[in-house]
């Protein structure tokens, strides 16, 4: 069984250490919620997990192998939903989603599944320029459903979402976990996932120096 874990992680932002000695372990079907006040390093940790940045110390491993040693494999198994929606206003909703679906090997069927999962069917041909913040967020989340991936990393995914969309997101995460997928979610609101574990980043905070 695949395991995704890290230990001894240290993250520096500029001169300041954000957290140190942080470890985590995620198995198939697990959901891990990252908690902590603003600036405690939730986004930084997610970016480390995605492989976008390297930790100042410690290692992150998939099945015991450092993710830096198999960057291509890690990219293929990871979907990252960051603060930014990566939506091009010049393209229509379906054009936006189809590109990412095709890039990750999901094809047209994947794009359609993404639209349906987040209730975007009726907006498919609309120019993304006219989407509201919540609709743009849904379009970003639809990438999760557009092509299968073992590891979902989400940074405050519920921002700007209405209640129905949050329910759709929870259903998508549940379906993902039911098939053995893993999810790591940074959030400060209780989104009500069954059996999710908590990781409080404040436990690993480094006291601000003089």
């Amino acid at each position, binding site marked *: 069984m695949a395991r995704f874990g890290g230990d001894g992680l240290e993250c520096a932002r500029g001169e300041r250490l954000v957290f140190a000695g942080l470890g985590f372990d995620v198995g198939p079907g697990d959901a891990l919620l990252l908690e902590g006040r603003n600036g405690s390093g939730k986004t930084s940790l997610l970016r480390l997990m995605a492989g*976008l940045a390297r930790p100042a110390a410690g290692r992150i491993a998939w099945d015991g192998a450092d993710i830096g040693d198999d960057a291509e494999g890690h990219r293929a198994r990871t979907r*990252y939903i960051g603060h930014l929606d990566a939506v091009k206003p010049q393209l229509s909703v379906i054009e936006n989603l189809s590109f990412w679906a095709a890039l990750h090997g999901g094809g047209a069927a994947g794009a359609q599944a993404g639209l349906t999962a987040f209730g975007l069917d009726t907006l498919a041909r609309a120019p993304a320029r006219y989407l509201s913040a919540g609709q743009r967020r849904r379009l970003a989340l639809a990438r999760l459903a557009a092509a299968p991936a073992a590891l979902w990393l989400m940074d405050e995914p519920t921002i700007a979402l209405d209640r129905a969309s949050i329910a759709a997101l929870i259903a998508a995460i549940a379906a993902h976990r039911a098939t053995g997928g893993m999810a790591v979610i940074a959030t400060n609101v209780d989104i009500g996932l069954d059996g999710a574990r908590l990781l409080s980043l404040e436990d690993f905070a480094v006291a601000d120096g003089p």
Partner: protein
Amino acid sequence: MIAALGLILRRELRLALRQAGESATVVLFFILAALLFPLGVGPSPATLARIAPGVLWATALLAAMLSFERLFQPDFEDGSLEQLALSPAPLEGLVLAKALAHWLTAAAPLIVAAPVLGVMLNLPAEGFVPLIAGMALGTPAISLIGAVGAALTLGARRGGVLLALLVIPLVIPVLIFGAAAVEAAIGGFPVRAHLTALGGISLGALVLGPWAAGAALRQALAE
């Protein structure tokens, strides 16, 4: 991976088509900047013919400077770049696809406009073929070097100015060989050496550019 690069190229071209104004700006700048010279130095045909090769190449390079910022900056700002960095395509491949799209949408229009401006600047007839050939061989280097500059200045404030300061010195060899090819043809000398040099610079940029720009993008994303 080839399929992924094809997808990225198609998306880039579609985006460029949807905002065709940006490509038009580059060509319009080229035309206007070249127009300043007959106005500034006077309409004497002999003078214009003398300066035409250098003016055309220098103004084309300056016009190209306007186009580099849109290579990565919009993708960086809206989060597309981090998504592309997490896609199966390596960043070096992304740079290659972006540079090719840039060449097709920004450099190719300059190559088309150059002979028209050549007529306006009274460029001697022998100069046209080496002008077009030189631009076709030299502009890939411009696109690739510009991609390195754009990647290095990502996220920097006033990145546009910094980009020009960084890229202009690096493209001077292209200007020298490009203008020299046209001058040589007008003077009745062989142009092959100049054109070969331009092609060589482009090949060098093709090898080093994606690698350097990919490293710079990785750095920009890790911050």
